[in-house]
């Protein structure tokens, strides 16, 4: 409850600040809507040449990419600003005050800055998701949709865990551009249906670097029905990576050198 109350303060502060920068507020919405339109056009063009891609027809891919939009909007709103700041804070030695507070430093540094000016994008992405689900030709059922939304939430957490895991090496490397670029290049895999990949690439994307668990596996559960092993796999991988990332964070804090005054 205390952490929830703290998060409400973060929200309040972030909204107060965001309202001061009106132009940025609108610019972010326009930028993300353009991104959504480009993705939908990209798949529309592909489906002009084929009726099935990775086992999915266009209405299924539409639900899948809208699922990714929702995860992306959540990540951009809840975590992205904090992830952007982390390497800067580490390199400038500005973690000091976060480390002396009696609160989890990981919680504080991951959630303190809520991008209130991206908040509207969650509403836009939710609207697109509702539209994609409503225009889906077959009945999906409440349980499947509920599980799908739960797995999208799991995908959001997984996205965050992998993002921060790619940033933590900054404690040793000091420059993190290379790893950051690799992470963003790899997020492309989460924007594609997992079945278009084969062999060890697919296995890697479902286990060690589970970008396909972010939005592709949830969509598969929605279309192919509830399979307990898939559910357990998605939740289990997220839990394992979260624990691993927490240990990695603790190890990194030991290497934190701060900065001289």
């Amino acid at each position: 409850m205390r952490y929830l109350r703290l998060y409400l303060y973060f929200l309040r502060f972030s909204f107060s600040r965001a309202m001061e920068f009106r132009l940025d507020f609108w610019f972010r919405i326009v930028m993300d809507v353009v991104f959504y339109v480009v993705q939908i056009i990209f798949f529309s063009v592909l489906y002009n040449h084929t009726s099935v891609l990775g086992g999915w027809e266009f209405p299924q891919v539409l639900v899948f990419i809208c699922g990714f939009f929702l995860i992306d909007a959540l990540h951009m709103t809840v975590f992205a600003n904090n992830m952007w700041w982390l390497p800067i804070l580490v390199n400038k030695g500005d973690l000091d005050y976060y480390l002396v507070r009696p609160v989890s430093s990981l919680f504080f540094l991951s959630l303190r800055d809520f991008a209130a000016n991206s908040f509207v994008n969650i509403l836009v992405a939710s609207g697109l998701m509702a539209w994609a689900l409503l225009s889906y030709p077959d009945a999906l059922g409440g349980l499947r949709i509920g599980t799908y939304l739960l797995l999208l939430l799991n995908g959001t957490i997984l996205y965050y865990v992998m993002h921060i895991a790619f940033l933590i090496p900054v404690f040793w490397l000091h420059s993190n551009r290379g790893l950051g670029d690799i992470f963003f290049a790899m997020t492309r895999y989460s924007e594609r249906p997992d079945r278009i990949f084969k062999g060890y690439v697919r296995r890697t994307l479902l286990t060690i670097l589970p970008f396909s668990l972010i939005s592709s596996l949830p969509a598969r559960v929605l279309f192919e029905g509830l399979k307990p092993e898939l559910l357990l796999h998605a939740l289990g991988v997220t839990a394992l990576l979260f624990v691993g990332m927490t240990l990695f964070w603790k190890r990194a804090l030991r290497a934190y050198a701060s900065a001289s005054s």
Partner: protein
Amino acid sequence: MIRVRNLKKEFRVHRKEPGLIASIRSLFVREHIVKHALKGVSFEVGEGEILGLVGANGAGKTTLVKILSGIIHPSGGEVSVLDHDPWKREDDFRSRIALIMGQKAQLWWDLPAADCFLLLKEIYRIPDGQYRDTLANLCDMLKVSGEINFQIRRLSLGERMKMELIAALLHRPRVVFLDEPTIGLDLSAQRAIRDFLLQYREEHKPAMILTSHYMEDIERLCERILIIRDGEFVYDGALDRVVRHYANHKILTAHLKRWPEEERAAAVARLQGEVLEAGRDQVRVKVDREDVTRCAQQLLSEWPVVDLNIEEVDIGTVIERIFNEKGKVPA
């Protein structure tokens, strides 16, 4: 409250020669040197004590403060602060310490201080009543009750520092680390903060460690100082003792009425101490502490003195001399 034994901290630093060729070479072969920031220091600080940590830039002061507050890990030795190992960062430990860094802000720039204080209330789980009383008391002591509802960025540097102090002390910490709390402030703000710290110490009796390059901070606030040079303590004791040891003299300056040149020359020859200046209007003499009264009497009885001034040697000069010397300061 603070106990430190044989504390060491080493940093491994990459050394690179200047120039492009050296940069390319460093891609393949790197030379690292180990920098010993702290070389086995030991000391204790008790309740209600303000310990001054004095040293040149890079001497190891900030490293020591950051180890004691749990920000960085030591390379060796033992540290106990409020019976905790700081680098374990237990919540009980972090709830009872405070860190104030004059060069780093902890408050949210775009928000009023009052909002930031509310967040800290939640972080430190301060009960409503205690929060209201402490905030009112601190605002009253620092005379900033009217400013807490303004955005931090709209405040002057002195007011911001006062807000930082309030933010750090809201939870009534038992140990307070102050790293250059008056840096960049004007004289009146510096004085206000010193007075506040003394009053706060009087009321709450926390252990405090203060680092500052302003000797007036050290003089006003600290009965005991630690002088640190290249990661080692060269002095641990009372401030006045080190001043007496290194400045066993005072400077007497007498402003004079005009008098004949030959009389003045004869009087100069009779004067006790080392004459630094003997002009027509003024004479300055460096005298051992025990001879000050005699020399002053001599000046007043034999010279046409209009005004007499007796100066202590500047503490900053004493400390600078210690920084530049080798070996420890004798106890």
